[in-house]
């Protein structure tokens, strides 16, 4: 079994425009499922033509509520990203790290994950 998985944003969203938070949630769910199985994930932005912070907050920023920065750094990478989109993603990541420094937010996010997993 492969320990690596490539997630194509274009395929999951079904459009080159990655705008809505709901679409970001679908991407997040794929990444989080793979990270929980300790797989290495490459997130491909091939054919993506528009991004928002709302989409990236849901897709990537949210991961910092469940996984440590070390886990994410070791197991998640990006490919085919346009240079200015990298700038946006970096800002989203830094914002997420700050956001989850608040223990109440981190705890709440953890509880939601546990609740979701219990329901599965």
């Amino acid at each position: 079994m492969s320990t690596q998985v490539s997630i194509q944003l274009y395929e999951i969203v079904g459009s080159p425009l990655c705008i809505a938070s709901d679409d970001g949630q679908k991407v997040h769910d794929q990444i989080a499922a793979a990270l929980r199985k300790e797989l290495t994930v490459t997130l491909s932005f091939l054919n993506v033509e528009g991004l928002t912070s709302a989409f990236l907050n849901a897709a990537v920023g949210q991961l910092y509520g469940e996984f440590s920065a070390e886990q994410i750094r070791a197991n998640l990478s990006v490919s085919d990203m346009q240079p200015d989109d990298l700038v946006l993603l970096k800002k989203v990541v830094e914002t997420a790290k700050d956001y989850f420094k608040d223990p109440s937010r981190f705890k709440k996010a953890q509880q939601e994950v546990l609740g979701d997993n219990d329901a599965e």
Partner: protein
Amino acid sequence: MEISLSNVKSDFEGFNQLIALLQKTKDCAFGEIEVDLAGVTWFEANMCAPFGAILYKVSRELNSVRVTNVHGKLENILLRNGFLSNYGRAVIPDRQGTTIKYKRLETKDARFFGSHIDDLLTKSGIPKMSTGLFKKFRESIFEIFSNAVIHSETKLGIFSCGQVFPNKHRLDFSIADLGMGIRQNVRQNADLDLTAEEAINWALEGKNTTKKGPIPGGLGLKLLREFIELNKGRIQIVSDKGYWDFSNGESQTRGFLHPFPGTVVNIEINTADERSYCLASEINPKNIF
């Protein structure tokens, strides 16, 4: 009931007139409201977004709304951008490609909105922009739309419209919602009791966010301000009784007597801007997380 408007620009007075229109009709239900534009010689078409939002709210009280005495150039623009087709006039095609369509979209229509923006930015009458500016402008519009979807909790849709000023190298684009407004959002989710102007300022400062759940937030408006400052453009935010205006690196706030029933964000961009907007060499993809 008949209400007359005078000229409507993207400024404090322009928004104030639209708020006054709502105030005058707030107790009307099952009535006939005639909005008379006979005295209007100048109406900045992006203001169709907040104007349409207010008329939509009025008509939701089962009032019949008519927009009358629209003549000359103004009639031509408001017909071609599709605004008057909501008030009993036939749609006419925009053969010159110089108007930006008035739209009311549902909050789930993000992708349709994206395609609409892409279509309009490739129209012949829209000023040519550099690739970098085109991308930043488009993303800014998407950020405003996403912000409205996430924060307003509106059930009445999102209203958008724009106006091009080719000779001044300006493009104005407004997005309005009929949701809870920034002040209410800050009060409800950040437990802060601020005036409407203070709440807008708060939302634009540092790491402030009203998000509490598992998805972080708080970047959208700040990214918008960062871009507009570089572009030497302008942003106006109207929410509840607050008016916030940012241009030339400085912001100003004012208060209205009565509230706008949601939030409007208007951006004005300098279409002649040749800046690349690419800061890329500073970011290594291996050092993102």
